[in-house]
């Protein structure tokens, strides 16, 4: 059988990098073909070329055995390719049906919502998707929004569906459901290109093509593959996976509480109760894990604990002193470091240089000024020292941060927050979207801080990582704490159930 879609020796360059280097890839009818690789390996670039977003500089694409050239996604859609982006492309103030129909131009000038509704209804039934077509997208859960994206592609008669890290934003339950739908689509001869860097998902595919640094390492049948082998292909070396808890911090000495939060509540501007009656304590030398489906109050908790948001009720004490109602500057000066989850938006000034970002928040500190002026020499010296200490790969301290990879940008934040803080470290998703190597590095640095006696609050969507390095794990759902477990005695399923409220209900 000849492949449905194929690219041969496809090459795509961006200024300074070869994102895809002579990539050859094919997709058979009805198969799930996984693109597997680290961040920056070229998975998303390849799929963007296949969907017509980018035009490759070398090589060519074949569809049904004949060469095609996609000048825009419109061309790709015309041959039956659909794509679901990692970040959804939906209009929040449109209904589900409107979102599916928008831009399809199927019936000339007139919008025929009636026949569209019939078609979408049929699709929903086919795939057992239960969606209110008249609901506004802004009111849907993330998992449901993804269904809308999938329906959009199916509505355009996609035969090939590209899913870009589809489970990044889903709960374990929603992910399972997604794979159920993927199964059904395959049975109906829809072929899937699945982009992922999660091993559990790769193993559900039929074949996998591993990419590293823009080039294909190899394509293997899943039946012949093992997770160890794929990991090795992905990183190009054996990995002793992840950091594990050292026992030094588990010795019996009495730890003093660093951060105490009592009955804290916060109501968002929208009127929604984002945090309800939160009570927790973090001790020195302790990593408190924070688990929860994203959007269940974790972000607000981090912002309240770093002084960005002022809680509406409750009390926060830091080293015994009440800090409730103080500003982020006060928290910083009391030794609180914050690693925000959206690093380019909340932690960095992307257009500023590495060394300028190293002093963000401390630009008025004597360490970086002389008299009323910024000291270029002090800022440069500090930047250089930080770049060395945290192994940041940059040409110089004067390089703008928006030229850095996610991992190096994250290291800039780590360097700043680790060196400026002294008691409490708040790390919200510090490893999101990073390579395995950098993830290990970030965790080892956090553990080192723990061993120095810091109190650490660490949120992650990777529950296994949380279980590995936390001492205790607090689980949030709907703005409330639904459980605090001892990491050593707990398991992923237990935490997953708490997260989704399965036990609370």
């Amino acid at each position, binding site marked *: 059988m000849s492949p449905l879609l194929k690219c041969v020796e496809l*090459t795509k360059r961006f*200024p*300074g990098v070869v994102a895809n280097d002579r990539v050859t890839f094919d997709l058979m009818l009805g198969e799930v073909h996984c693109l597997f690789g680290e961040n920056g390996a070229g998975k998303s670039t390849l799929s963007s070329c296949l969907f017509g977003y980018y035009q490759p*500089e*070398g090589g*060519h694409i074949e569809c049904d055995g*004949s*060469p*095609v*050239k*996609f*000048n825009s996604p419109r*061309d790709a859609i*015309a*041959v039956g390719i659909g794509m679901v982006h990692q970040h959804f492309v939906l209009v929040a103030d449109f209904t589900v049906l409107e979102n599916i129909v928008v831009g399809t131009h199927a019936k000339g000038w007139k919008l025929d919502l009636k026949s569209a509704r019939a078609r979408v209804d049929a699709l929903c039934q086919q795939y057992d998707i239960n969606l209110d077509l008249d609901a506004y997208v802004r009111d849907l859960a993330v998992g449901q929004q993804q269904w809308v994206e999938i329906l959009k592609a199916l509505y355009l008669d996609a035969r090939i569906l590209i899913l870009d890290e589809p489970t990044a934003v889903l709960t374990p339950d929603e992910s399972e459901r997604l794979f159920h739908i993927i199964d059904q689509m395959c049975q109906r001869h829809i072929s899937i290109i699945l982009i992922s860097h999660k091993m559990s998902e790769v193993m559900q595919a039929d074949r996998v093509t591993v990419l590293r640094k823009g080039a294909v390492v190899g394509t293997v049948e899943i039946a012949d593959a093992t997770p160890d082998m794929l990991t090795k292909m992905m990183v190009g070396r054996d990995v002793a996976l992840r950091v594990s808890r050292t026992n030094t911090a588990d010795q019996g000495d009495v730890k003093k509480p660093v951060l105490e939060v009592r009955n804290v509540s916060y109501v968002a501007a929208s009127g929604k109760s984002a945090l309800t009656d939160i009570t927790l304590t973090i001790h020195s030398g302790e990593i408190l894990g924070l688990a929860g489906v994203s959007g269940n109050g974790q972000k607000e908790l981090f*912002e309240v604990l*770093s*002084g*960005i948001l002022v809680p509406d009720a409750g009390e926060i004490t830091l080293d015994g002193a009440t800090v409730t109602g103080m*500003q*982020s*500057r006060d*928290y*910083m000066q009391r030794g609180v470091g*914050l690693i*925000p989850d959206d690093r380019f*938006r*909340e*932690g*960095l*000034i*992307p*257009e*500023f240089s590495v060394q*300028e970002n190293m*002093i*963000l*928040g401390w*630009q*008025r500190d004597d360490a970086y*000024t002389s008299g*009323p*002026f*910024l000291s270029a020499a002090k800022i440069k010296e500090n930047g250089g020292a930080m770049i060395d200490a945290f192994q940041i790969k940059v040409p110089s301290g004067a390089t703008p941060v928006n*030229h850095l990879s996610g991992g190096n940008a994250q290291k800039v934040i780590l360097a700043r927050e680790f060196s400026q803080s002294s008691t409490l470290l708040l790390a919200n998703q510090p490893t999101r979207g990073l390579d395995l190597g950098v993830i290990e590095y970030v965790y080892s640095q956090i553990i080192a801080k723990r061993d120095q006696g810091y109190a650490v609050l660490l949120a992650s969507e990777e529950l296994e990582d949380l279980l590995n390095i936390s001492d205790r794990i607090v689980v949030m759902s709907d703005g409330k704490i639904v459980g605090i477990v001892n990491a050593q005695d707990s398991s992923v399923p237990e935490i997953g159930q708490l997260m989704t409220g399965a036990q609370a209900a």
Partner: protein
Amino acid sequence: MSSIDDMPTGQRRIKVERRLNPNASWTLAMYLIATLFGLGLTALLIWTSGADVLKAFITLFDGAFGSQKAWIASLAKATPLILTGLATIVAFRAQVWSIGQEGQVYSGAMGAYLACLVFADLPVGIYLSLIILSGMIAGAGLGIIAAILKTRFGVNEIISTVMMNYLIVFLLSYLIGGGPWTEVSSSVVYQQSAQIPDAAQLPYLFGTAKLHIAFVFALIAAVFCYVVLEKTPLGYEIRAMGFNPVALAHRGTNIGRTMIIVMAISGAIAGLAGVSEIFGTSHRVRVDTLYGFGFTGIIIGMIGGLRPLGAVIAGILFGGLETGALYMKLLAKVPAAIVPAMEGILLLTFLIAGVAARYKIVRVNTND
């Protein structure tokens, strides 16, 4: 979708790519092309008006920079424009989209005129200083109002500053058009104040040539803006606020306070432009002599690439164009309205050049 069969392999083609680092000579080339292109379009306009294009340009540049006298007139014209350009830069670098420079110019003129009436008995040095200071405070005050409306009540600064421009110009029209500041001479009422006393006039730099000391103030203001923006913690905060206010606020900077300071500085500099024009050039408070400096300042700030030195250069260029326009109108019979059209054309071509400077053209082999 097209088949690639008909495409020769190994074809070379031209591609536009984003630059990682700016290249000085490329940037210069882009601005040079922008200038030539702008002049070309202006030539087209002059040609359609039926005048001799070459003669028009020669008289324009002669009138602007052809003699010492022309230079002095151009620099005098440039003074308030440099100041309003700088006021624009301070606000826009923080991405505070203030359109209020126009109103702040009027406000500065009014504050200074009030001081001119109140402190008339003081010694000349103190008198002049108070006049200048009052003008700057009045300009700053108007800026601060917009900043507080934004930080306290979330009022968009574009809307509030535009509205205040109207309020201020009507207030001034009242004060000098029948109100307490109206010149009382004969039965005829002009919309203007009485002549400003000699003691309150800004001194000339070279004898009687009409270049007054505010030109030096404008240069000092340019240095001040450069130093504050590039060399101080406040400048760090202003620039950071322009790029990413969220991260700046999350890391402990009170951005509401930063915004108030930005608008105060911007307003004070714009206010100084009003003082410069009234007390240095027209020697009476009138609406028509003040009109447009604030709006042209926005163009100058943008053409200057939001850099203080750029504003000085663009300000002098525009001052020259406006001086030269008079000669061009007289000698080449070209309507003076060509000049504002030319300013607008140059703004567009310079903005395009600013974008083009960030890209490069490369030749690629499609089959390698």
